[in-house]
């Protein structure tokens, strides 16, 4: 009994950095997982990845201007991400370019502009911690930022939920009855960026998307209903955050990848045994029914 306690609880009671990491990971999962479900359902699974690239130069510019300052880097990332998100939405809505192509053009431009600015300054900045994050070194400010972003995400998502769902299922209908579909879509893109910013502090830009997409894909294999899908995704994200930190603590591996790997294991289990379209169900469907 005591060993179970020592394995699962003690790391968090003994060490403050583990408690902070846990709070950060859980807050991140609460916001990022529902966003991931919508990204997946909108067939925008790779958009998060592209947006992460779009944020990076903004953060780098913030770093250039004011050093390793949380506020400057976050603001830079947010501005770069918002600009790319809003421009993408506008171009996709008003021209023949589809969302994916519009996004590709803008995030590449954003990346190129960022790299150009850095090269003009002639400095060789170490962006490793932006690339890979460090969930074990979250300070108060960063923790508040992640928690704040999660709060904003859940509230705003609740506000735009109905038009967003209708916009996803039947955009033509949404256009015919109301203008709020476009607004909901833009608000959603803003939420994507917010959660990527949270993600890059905890997991780094490269893995931030992992906390969005892997739990979302997990949810898809267990639910036919979007509400349940988001609940399952969030649960698996929370579990991945907790279990990943434990694995990282006991086996001495990097915390960010450990969290994403656990999320990946949950996804693989779902892929194999999920009730909705899992591989095992497809291979052994059982006898067909009467009607």
């Amino acid at each position: 009994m005591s060993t179970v306690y020592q394995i699962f609880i003690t790391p968090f009671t003994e060490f403050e950095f583990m408690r902070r990491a846990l709070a950060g990971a859980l807050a991140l999962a609460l916001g990022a997982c529902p966003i991931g479900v919508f990204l997946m359902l909108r067939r925008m699974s790779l958009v998060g990845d592209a947006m992460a690239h779009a944020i990076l130069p903004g953060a780098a510019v913030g770093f250039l201007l004011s050093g390793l300052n949380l506020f400057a880097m976050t603001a830079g990332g947010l501005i770069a991400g918002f600009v790319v998100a809003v421009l993408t939405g506008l171009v996709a809505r008003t021209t023949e370019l589809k969302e994916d192509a519009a996004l590709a053009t803008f995030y590449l431009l954003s990346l190129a502009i960022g790299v150009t600015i850095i090269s003009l300054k002639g400095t060789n900045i170490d962006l490793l911690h932006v690339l890979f994050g460090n969930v074990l070194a979250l300070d108060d400010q960063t923790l508040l930022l992640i928690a704040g972003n999660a709060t904003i995400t859940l509230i705003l998502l609740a506000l735009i939920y109905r038009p967003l769902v209708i916009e996803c299922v039947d955009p033509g209908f949404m256009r015919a009855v109301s203008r709020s579909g476009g607004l909901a879509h833009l608000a959603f893109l803003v939420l994507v960026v917010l959660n990527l910013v949270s993600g890059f502090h905890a997991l780094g830009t490269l893995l931030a998307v992992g906390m969005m997409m892997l739990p979302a894909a997990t949810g898809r294999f267990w639910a036919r209903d979007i509400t349940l899908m988001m609940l399952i995704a969030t649960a698996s994200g929370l579990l991945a955050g907790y279990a990943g930190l434990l694995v990282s603590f006991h086996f001495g591996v990097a915390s960010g990848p450990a969290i994403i790997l656990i999320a990946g294991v949950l996804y693989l289990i779902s892929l194999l045994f999920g009730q909705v379209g899992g591989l095992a169900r497809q291979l052994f469907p059982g006898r067909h029914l009467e009607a």
Partner: protein
Amino acid sequence: MTAALRFRNLTLGYDRHPAVHHLDGAVENGALVAVVGPNGAGKSTLFKGIVGVIKPLAGGIERGDPNPQNIAYLPQAADIDRTFPINVYDMVSMGLWRRAGSFGGIDRDARTLIEQAIAAVGLSGFEDRAIATLSGGQMQRMLFARLLLQDARVIVLDEPFNAVDAKTSADLFDLVRRWHGERRTVLTAMHDIDFVRANFPETLLLAREPVAWGHTANVLTPENLLAARRMCEAFDHQAEPCGDEQASTLPPRGEPADAATHQPRR
């Protein structure tokens, strides 16, 4: 009688090429109009113009009721994501948008309405089914239930009975009749000429240019149908700007039209 819709020298199209060319006329309140014409005749384009999805290239549409939510629209191929995890009940309840909007609750009263609409299209028992599992006919029934809830004064249906079986189209046309009885204005794009003759009092025959508009029996004459079929479908990419901005090929509705009088200048 006041008009639910009035077209004034309306030209609609894509990339400056007209798909509906110089349409004039009015749809009276409570009219039941079939819009007939070959593929590419501009039926869908006209409907998109009516609901405001595309803007006129020239001329205009006056709506008797300026509130766009008072027009309900069923597109020909609704771009519905059928893999989206949503059930029939929630999909139908979208029809209450005007009443509930983004935040309004769905109270007991609204739930009764939703159930009645689902029952009216014969989908009782399907409430919890994911839309991915519906057949084409069931899908169309579901969309009609949503139209019922929209409770609009003007209803625009783009080929609603394509690819559904006879039973389904008969059931759904009963709803169209019911709307007509409630003095709602209904425009329906149709391909089945015999069905139009039997069921629609008024017809607009369209072949990019309006060919004829009026009582169905006067419009669907062999000559008019032949004229409609002859009009070319493809865009002429070399077309010059149309010089005849004020012209209308169609005299006020109800009279035979001579479609040959208007040719874009080449």
